[in-house]
């Protein structure tokens, strides 16, 4: 018998999962227009590879990964690119993001798919393949998977944990995927296993999903692997990567460490599935399973093309009349979709049609009475009540002392708070303030460094120039006296040496050299540009300014996500 560990805290909210598991996964229709955001994973924003007017095929790469922590983006169906522009994103901020808008042609024509036998490839090549196929963590955190597939150099990889816990209420996409496509998941896990070489592979599934557990056990047997399928107690957030790792291995990963440092790594079941499809079928990640549920007549799981606007899914779920908004993700960690035009992305595991009956408006916030219910519920054993005081008082240094960044924002504290304090919001606020201040400090440091370097350079140049001038002047003074010796002509025939004139000439020559130098330094590729190219550059420049912020933000995000994994 496999012995499980426990994590402290956690809550048992009602699960609301039964409704959406009654029917098998169905394919959602191809929408008329798809909005594919380029930035669908943690890390660098992919560069667009297509232009408006280009014809694309299903599976064609339309966004190239930027740097190592980034992931490619593909056309979900065949059609024509009609624009590459800022569109409303499926993000709590409601800000637009650069997206490729594709008009579907209805033919759903694939590119030439190239299955590979990954056993013949170097591990590095497999990781690159996964990056170029857009494989990211589909549990919701969308961290590029290839970047997690390297074991620590000094710590042996002991356990590979596969996350099928799916602890958020309402959600059942992983449940159905495990029931229906268990063998592909198991083969995908095989790829991860081969890359990481762990001693054991543990598949954790919450015990409220007996069908999925049975299906995965059968799949493991059918594929002939020795993976252990383990039922874990249903306790939110057991599906958090760190909690599941704790339950299955007893290891606790603090925010300051990454899981490979403790010899363990964790992937979601859906991620393993897409990895297998990418390698063995040459199909990049262009769709995902989404649970459409909540206040609807037709709760069900659908395989939805990425980029499908939420509007096109509404007819599938048939929301009831009192639906007032749509929540993306689960009720504990999800957020309000900013509009019906926001598209489904790789992070969209669930859409909940919400009504005041399902999610009542929040009760008025009362003062904290220090009851400590939050501390008891916190799976990271933090003291939310203390963090709350410090965050409220803008005492951000103290929040860090009390380990603010170990907070995984699971929402357990807010769930149990009798004073109805939106604790998680306070913590997010404190984190973003701290990031903003760090960024400011970094910018200020960089500016100071630049300033100092410039000063230094100017000083140096001045000194060099003076030296050069002095040398030149000296040379000219020396020249007339030497010449007679060379030519044998009488010295009296030479014009009288005028030090002033020599100086002026030297200055003029120096200015001329400087002008030429400046011209050389100018970027040459801007010399012969067409009008259209110049316009494009101007547009890019204009876009770059507002983009500075989010790019910086995403750096912080990367760091956080690297710590949090799935």
């Amino acid at each position: 018998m496999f012995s499980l560990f426990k994590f402290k805290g956690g809550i048992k909210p009602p699960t609301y999962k039964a409704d959406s598991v009654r029917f098998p996964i169905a394919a959602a229709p191809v929408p008329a227009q798809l909005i594919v955001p380029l930035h669908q994973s943690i890390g660098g924003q992919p560069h667009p590879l297509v232009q408006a007017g280009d014809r694309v095929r299903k599976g064609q790469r339309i966004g190239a990964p930027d740097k190592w922590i980034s992931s490619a983006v593909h056309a979900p169906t065949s059609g024509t690119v009609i624009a590459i522009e800022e569109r409303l994103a499926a993000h709590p901020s409601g800000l637009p993001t650069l997206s490729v808008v594709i008009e579907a042609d209805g033919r759903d024509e694939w590119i030439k798919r190239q299955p590979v036998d990954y056993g013949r490839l170097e591990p590095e090549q497999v990781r690159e393949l996964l990056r170029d196929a857009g494989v990211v963590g589909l549990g919701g955190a969308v961290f590029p998977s290839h970047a997690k597939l390297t074991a620590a150099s000094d710590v042996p990889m002991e356990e590979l944990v596969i996350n099928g816990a799916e602890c958020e209420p309402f959600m059942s996409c992983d449940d159905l995927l495990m029931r229906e496509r268990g063998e592909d998941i198991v083969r995908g896990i095989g790829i991860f296993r081969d890359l990481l070489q762990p001693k054991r592979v543990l598949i954790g599934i919450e015990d409220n999903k007996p069908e999925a557990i049975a299906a995965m056990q059968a799949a493991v047997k059918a594929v002939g692997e020795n993976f252990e399928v383990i039922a874990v107690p249903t306790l939110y957030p057991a599906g958090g990567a760190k909690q599941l790792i704790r339950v299955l291995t007893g290891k606790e990963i603090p925010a300051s460490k990454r899981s490979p440092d403790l010899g363990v790594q964790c992937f979601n079941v859906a991620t393993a599935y897409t990895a297998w499809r990418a390698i063995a079928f040459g199909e990049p990640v262009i769709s995902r399973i989404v649970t459409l549920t909540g206040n609807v007549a037709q709760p069900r799981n659908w395989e939805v093309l990425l980029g499908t606007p939420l509007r096109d899914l509404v007819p599938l779920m048939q929301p009831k009349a009192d639906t007032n908004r749509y929540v993306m993700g689960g009720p504990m960690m999800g957020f309000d979709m900013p509009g019906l035009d926001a598209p489904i992305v790789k992070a969209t595991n669930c859409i909940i049609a919400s009504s005041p009956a399902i999610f009542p408006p929040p009760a008025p916030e009362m003062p904290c009475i220090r009851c400590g219910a939050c501390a008891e519920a916190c799976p990271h054993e933090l003291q939310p009540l203390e963090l709350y005081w410090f965050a409220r008082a803008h005492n951000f240094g103290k929040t860090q002392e009390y380990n603010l960044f170990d907070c995984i924002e699971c929402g357990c504290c807010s769930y149990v708070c009798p004073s109805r304090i939106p604790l998680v919001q306070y913590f997010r606020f404190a984190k973003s303030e701290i990031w903003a201040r760090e960024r400011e400090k970094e910018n200020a440091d960089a500016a100071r460094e630049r300033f100092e370097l410039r000063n230094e350079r100017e000083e140096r140049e001045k000194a060099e120039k003076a030296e050069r001038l002095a040398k030149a002047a000296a040379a000219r003074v020396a020249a007339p006296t030497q010449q007679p010796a060379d030519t044998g002509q009488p010295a009296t025939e030479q014009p009288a040496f005028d030090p002033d004139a020599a100086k002026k000439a030297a200055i003029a020559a120096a200015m001329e050299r400087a002008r030429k130098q400046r011209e050389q330094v100018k970027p040459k590729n801007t010399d012969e540009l067409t009008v259209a190219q110049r316009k494009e550059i101007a547009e890019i420049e204009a876009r770059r300014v507002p983009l500075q912020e989010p790019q910086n933000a995403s750096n912080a995000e990367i760091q956080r996500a690297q710590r949090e994994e799935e």
Partner: protein
Amino acid sequence: MNFTSPPYLTQNVSVRRIMLQVLAALLPAIGVYLWLLGPIVLVQLAIATATALAAEAVMLKLVDKPLGLFLGDGSAIVTAWLIALAFPPMAPWWLIVVGVAFAIVVAKHLYGGLGQNPFNPAMIAFAVCIVSFPALMSRWPSLNMDASFADHVAVMFGQLPRLDAMNGATPLDTLKTALKLGEGQVSVGAILADTRIFGRMGGHGWEWVAAAYLAGGLWLWQRKVIGWHLPLSFLGGMVALSGALWLWNPAQFASPLFHLFSGGTMLGAFFIVTDPVSGSTTPKGKLIFGFAAGLIAYLIRVFGGYPDGVAFSVLLLNLCVPLIDLYTQPPIFGMKGEK
């Protein structure tokens, strides 16, 4: 669309619910009081409740907080009931009014209202009144007296002079005085043999009040309104010290059982030290808080000049809470091996 923030699901809990459960947990003790002394207990509770709500309303109005929300949270009523039950039954009406008003106005609202008070308001009321009116606060009615409800009311409102039977001492006080008078010649066993005063465990009749507090407290624990750390450590502190002295010299020190079931021990353990606002919040801190409060309460009641020590010991520990909390922060997930 109107935006809200996750989590969208919340547990069915509220400050009001917690306070109502605390009030419900006091009902058994109130029932025993009724049985022992008659309906005069309800008059005392009513005076306290009315004063608390009035004082709360005035203070809320002054700081411009929503009346309905905060009056409805029940916290003022909990304070009122605790004061009414901690004060001697049939105390003059104005004593209750002064105590409750001081608790709500000074101890609670001058510090910022709900959740902000560093001291337990009910214990502040008790301390203020026992320092200001020591005689009135030390006189407890005899349970064997023969007076009607109308007489009780008349006495409470000053229409009738206090009867001798209303000017007794608590069993704790009686024991202390007897031991003092005996100058080491009288044994505890001999004094406690008078079961008309001392009952079987901690005072004739009063031990049943204590048992009712225990029952209410256990119910609160079972409902997870209070944790086990504070009550158990408080009782532990009381038992540890009383037990040690009793084992050392049983003739001069009463048994732990006597101390558990007399005075304010049970009320203190389950309803006073468990006040979350003014108490420690970390698990280790709660154990320190409770144990120290139990020890000090015992020291005051046995060696000090006051009839009981719960109020002063709790207030003393309230003062230490920031320090206790600072040094007892538990290690977090993943950081247990490190400091």
